[in-house]
């Protein structure tokens, strides 16, 4: 550039260039959109409470009244908490439906704006209460991205260990509830029994069975305790034969297959258009797993397979989760081999509290400790989105910081919430008994749906 050579004194106007593969132009006309990819879009009921009440109260007049409006839930054993469904039934089949949510809404995103970044994980961990580590992880990753904080290798691997153990416990819970919903009640006991074994390991490490507040910005709350290898090793020993029992009890069993195969079928285009993620998306044959496709932590250093389905039915969703337990165990085996030594949290004293012993001997350590736990640490201005592959799909955390010690805005993209949109499509023209199987196959956690 001749101009800049001639005038070296002139301030160089920094024109940042960003390499990207995207189109540079806006569209000249509106895209036809993806609604056309939804063959059963008219199965989505668009009706308010008031309209439904009016319709319900209207007198039966003629032969045109062929369908019946029905309410299911919010307190129904098969709705996994407090999910309510408005159903329009034609005889025993579901014509249209509308999931109604919000019964557990406690304004956790609003609460998040009043808590410091160190307190944040205590709040988000209660959203998806079956997979609490993932909430903490997404939140912590987002905060660390904003600060630009590198965390020690050991902390990364501890996080991976806890995530994969949590995926196992969450999928075991699914095995239990899915069995229960479909009448395999003994499965409920088995799934819960195995899950409890995993929760015992969590208790050993974090002190709590659920809602651990263990993964925090800067690392994890405490190092792995003595004997953690034995505890994990024991789990890895007892789980495979029990999963083999599940195969006998469910996978190969004709009643189970009859009950699930061909129920709640969804295609890949449909799932993508409806923003479905996790096993719901993978069951349609889309091999999309953030651990592999957009690796975070150290998932690019472990080997595992992404389990995908073929038919997109409830059986695929069940089989995917069962095999994801096995894949997670495979990852845990590798973590046991590769777990590095070192710090379990960053040593940046502005973010993580100093070790207890330092507080007795150092004035600065005492001050840092006091500041972190009273005022909290400040996070640079900016906005960031961090996503992890939770057992239910993409769990994202969007944080806007105004430079203070509390998030200006904290939003959680809960996969259960968005996956619920697929319900009316999958239940359309199915029997009401199959609706139960469909709800169960999405595996929604209402704490995360309502937040």
């Amino acid at each position, binding site marked *: 550039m001749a101009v800049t050579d001639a005038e070296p004194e002139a301030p160089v106007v920094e*024109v*940042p260039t*960003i390499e*990207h*593969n*995207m*189109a*540079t*132009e*806006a*569209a*000249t*006309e*509106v*895209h036809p*959109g*993806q*609604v056309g990819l*939804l063959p059963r*879009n008219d199965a*989505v009921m*668009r009706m*308010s*409470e*008031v309209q439904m009440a009016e319709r319900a109260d209207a007198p039966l007049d003629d032969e045109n009244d062929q369908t019946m409006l029905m309410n299911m839930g919010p307190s129904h054993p098969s709705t996994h908490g407090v999910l309510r469904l408005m159903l329009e039934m034609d005889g025993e089949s579901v014509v249209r439906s509308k999931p109604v*949510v*919000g019964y557990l*809404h406690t304004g956790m995103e*609003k609460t998040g704006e*009043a808590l410091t970044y160190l307190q944040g994980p205590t709040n988000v961990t209660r959203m998806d209460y079956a997979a609490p580590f993932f909430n903490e992880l997404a939140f912590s990753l987002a905060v660390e*991205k904003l600060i*630009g904080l590198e965390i020690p290798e050991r902390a990364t691997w501890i996080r991976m260990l806890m995530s994969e153990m949590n995926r196992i416990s969450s999928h075991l819970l699914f095995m239990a509830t899915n069995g229960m919903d479909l009448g395999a009640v003994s499965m409920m006991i088995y799934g819960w029994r195995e899950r409890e074994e995993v929760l015992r390991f969590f208790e050993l490490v974090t002190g709590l069975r659920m809602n651990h507040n263990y993964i925090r910005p800067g690392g994890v709350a405490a190092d792995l305790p003595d004997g953690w290898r034995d505890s994990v090793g024991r789990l890895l020993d007892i789980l495979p034969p029990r999963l083999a029992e599940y195969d006998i009890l469910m996978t190969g069993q004709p009643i189970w297959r009859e009950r699930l195969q061909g129920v709640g079928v969804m295609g890949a285009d449909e799932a*993508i*258009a*409806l*923003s*479905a*993620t996790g096993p719901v998306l993978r069951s349609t044959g889309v091999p*999309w797993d953030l651990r592999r*496709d*957009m690796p975070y932590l150290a998932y690019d250093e472990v080997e595992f397979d992404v389990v995908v389905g073929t038919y997109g039915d409830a059986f695929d969703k069940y089989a995917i989760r069962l095999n994801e337990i096995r894949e997670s165990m495979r990852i845990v085996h590798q973590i046991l081999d590769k777990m590095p030594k070192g710090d379990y949290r960053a040593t940046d004293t502005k973010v993580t509290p100093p070790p207890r012993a330092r507080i007795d001997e150092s004035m600065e350590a005492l001050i840092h400790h006091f500041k972190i736990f009273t005022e909290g640490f400040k996070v*640079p*201005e*900016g*906005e*960031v*989105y961090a*996503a992890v592959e939770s057992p239910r799909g*993409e769990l*994202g955390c*969007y944080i*806007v910081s105004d430079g203070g010690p509390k998030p*200006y*805005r904290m*939003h959680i*993209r809960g996969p259960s*919430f*968005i996956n*619920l*949109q697929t319900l009316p499509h999958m239940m359309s023209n199915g029997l009401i008994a199959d609706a139960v199987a469909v709800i169960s196959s999405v595996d929604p956690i209402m704490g995360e749906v309502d937040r």
Partner: protein
Amino acid sequence: MTDDDVTDTTADEESVAAPTGPVAFGCPLVESADGQLVIHPARDEWLLVASAILGDGFRMCIDVTAVDFLTFQGRRDVPEGILPERFELVASFINHERRERIRARVQIPEGDPTIASLTTLYPGADYLEREVFDMFGISFDGHPDLSRILMPESWEGHPLRKDFATGAIPVQFKGTN
């Protein structure tokens, strides 16, 4: 909105934005923390920009949310040529083939909190837009069922707005005497 309006605003946008920095989908492109790519479309062009995003292979709308900047004036991460407003719509998209993400931040003025709905392009934005409507009172033109989703239908106000006071319910301990 006629075609003339559309082309006019597009031309303005390019003439202002193009020289100052990188561009994607006709909007200023910036890098957020950790190198995440963010575009800043104008509100009037939202549907056209989203069409281009979809046309470019970003087939999944992964997240739609909003931020109320009432008590956070003087943001520094909005590029030149974009006027910061009170509300900001934040939408993220995924391209599965190229394994890319893009995030769009659209400014929405306080006086007229409306924006075009993404639901025709991305049906999956349905619940997310309802949540934004519920929590921030931003309405989406063309949404098939714009109603509250988390709060009761009879609720007044929009809880995630910064001027929606958080109150404590006094708890009285009864039955102890």
